[in-house]
């Protein structure tokens, strides 16, 4: 069974684009966000265990779309219904065994997946590693200012609030996404400490955007996949992925909605902002925390 590839990064770090690009390689299969390692058994994906933040149905969309596509060869309301039955029949199976079943089904293609929620907790990443000891992990980084601005622009920073990325001021609490940027990258680094070096690679998303073909080639060689011109050309078209669009009404998402609305890739040079200036999402003129700056420098920013 081909060892899967997992992209590890906080959300809004080019993961959707990279996942779809790698998934378009002729020897790979790009999955939507399965979120399977968020839980221990499949049925738990259907259980809501807190009312603090509201609905979580979207976390199931990726899995339903993937099952529909893999087993029915299409994503329609009928095939999503089939996928729901497929899941219901396996509700007590472990998340790892479900994942292994899907990977075996698409073998010999290499499964490529990213669910940014995996980086919330080291335990989730360790569960991946236990299920797939030969998995490869690609740590994708993004400049903290770019990533935080992007997080705050999506549904008013819901994700940062969801993960308690909060700062307490004297008279109020505010959403401060840089805590999440720092701590999730730290989670990734702490996890990767236990993974052999040959099974991990770190790439700056900004480099990928400007020198895409060069970096795709490097990643292919690391993954021991073809790196010829045809393979690279196919990877330059993430919009051709069956998951690079909204799904049927029963399972619309499974990925970042911005990516689903416009998945076409255009290489571009990303302007890297300074690390020592006030940040735009703060009204009090504060900047990045020293720990955030130090980690960003470690990533080469």
């Amino acid at each position: 069974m081909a060892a899967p590839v997992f992209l590890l990064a906080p959300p809004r770090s080019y993961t959707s684009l990279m996942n779809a690009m790698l998934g378009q390689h002729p020897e790979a299969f790009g999955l939507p966000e399965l979120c399977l390692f968020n839980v221990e058994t499949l049925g738990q994906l259907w259980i809501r265990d807190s009312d603090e933040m509201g609905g979580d149905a979207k976390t199931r969309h990726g899995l339903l779309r993937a099952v529909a596509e893999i087993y029915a060869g299409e994503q329609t309301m009928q095939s999503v219904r089939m996928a729901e039955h497929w899941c219901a029949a396996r509700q007590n199976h472990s998340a790892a065994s479900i994942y292994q079943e899907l990977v075996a089904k698409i073998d010999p293609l290499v499964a490529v997946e990213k669910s940014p929620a995996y980086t919330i907790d080291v335990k989730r990443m360790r569960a991946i590693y236990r299920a797939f000891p030969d998995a490869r992990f690609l740590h994708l980084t993004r400049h903290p200012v770019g990533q935080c601005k992007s997080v705050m622009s999506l549904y008013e920073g819901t994700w940062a609030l969801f993960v308690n990325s909060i700062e307490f001021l004297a008279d109020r609490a505010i959403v401060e996404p840089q805590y999440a940027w720092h701590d999730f990258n730290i989670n990734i680094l702490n996890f990767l400490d236990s993974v052999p070096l040959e099974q991990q690679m770190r790439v700056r998303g900004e480099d990928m955007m400007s020198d895409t073909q060069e970096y795709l080639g490097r990643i292919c060689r690391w993954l021991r996949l073809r790196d010829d011109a045809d393979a690279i050309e196919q990877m330059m078209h993430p919009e051709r992925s069956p998951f690079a669009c909204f799904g049927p009404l029963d399972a619309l998402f499974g990925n970042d909605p911005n990516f689903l609305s416009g998945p076409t890739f255009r290489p571009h040079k990303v302007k890297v902002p300074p690390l020592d200036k006030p940040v735009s999402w703060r009204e009090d003129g504060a900047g990045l925390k020293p720990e955030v700056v130090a980690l960003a420098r470690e990533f080469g920013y």
Partner: protein
Amino acid sequence: MSDSGDARKEGSRPKIGPVDGDPVTTHPDLEKLSSYQRGLREALLREFKARKVKKFVEKQVKYINANRQVAEEIKILFDENGQPPANAPMEDIIAERRQLEYQIKWFEAMVLELQTRLLRVREIEALALDVLDHSPEA
């Protein structure tokens, strides 16, 4: 691009976020927060939810008014006798046609969604009746 890893003790890098534990939807560890901070956090969540509800309601009101909007918009295509006006600009007619096509697509999607829900309810109903039929008291 570089290989990860350094000389520090494996897996021991410290985090800086003020709240430990899983995300809010599971089990955040609020023990380290003072009661004042917990209150501030609660207020932030409440404010966020209120904004979310407000936006949802605004959106729903827009959909509810869709019928009236359609009626208002197609009025320009007819005069008081129910006939198209002689001097209607072509651009207006094309714009109206596009708008109507968009709204029809929206209604079709709504119908599809309702049909799906109906199917589900029928399935549950059939299953429940089946259970009743086979119960000892039946």
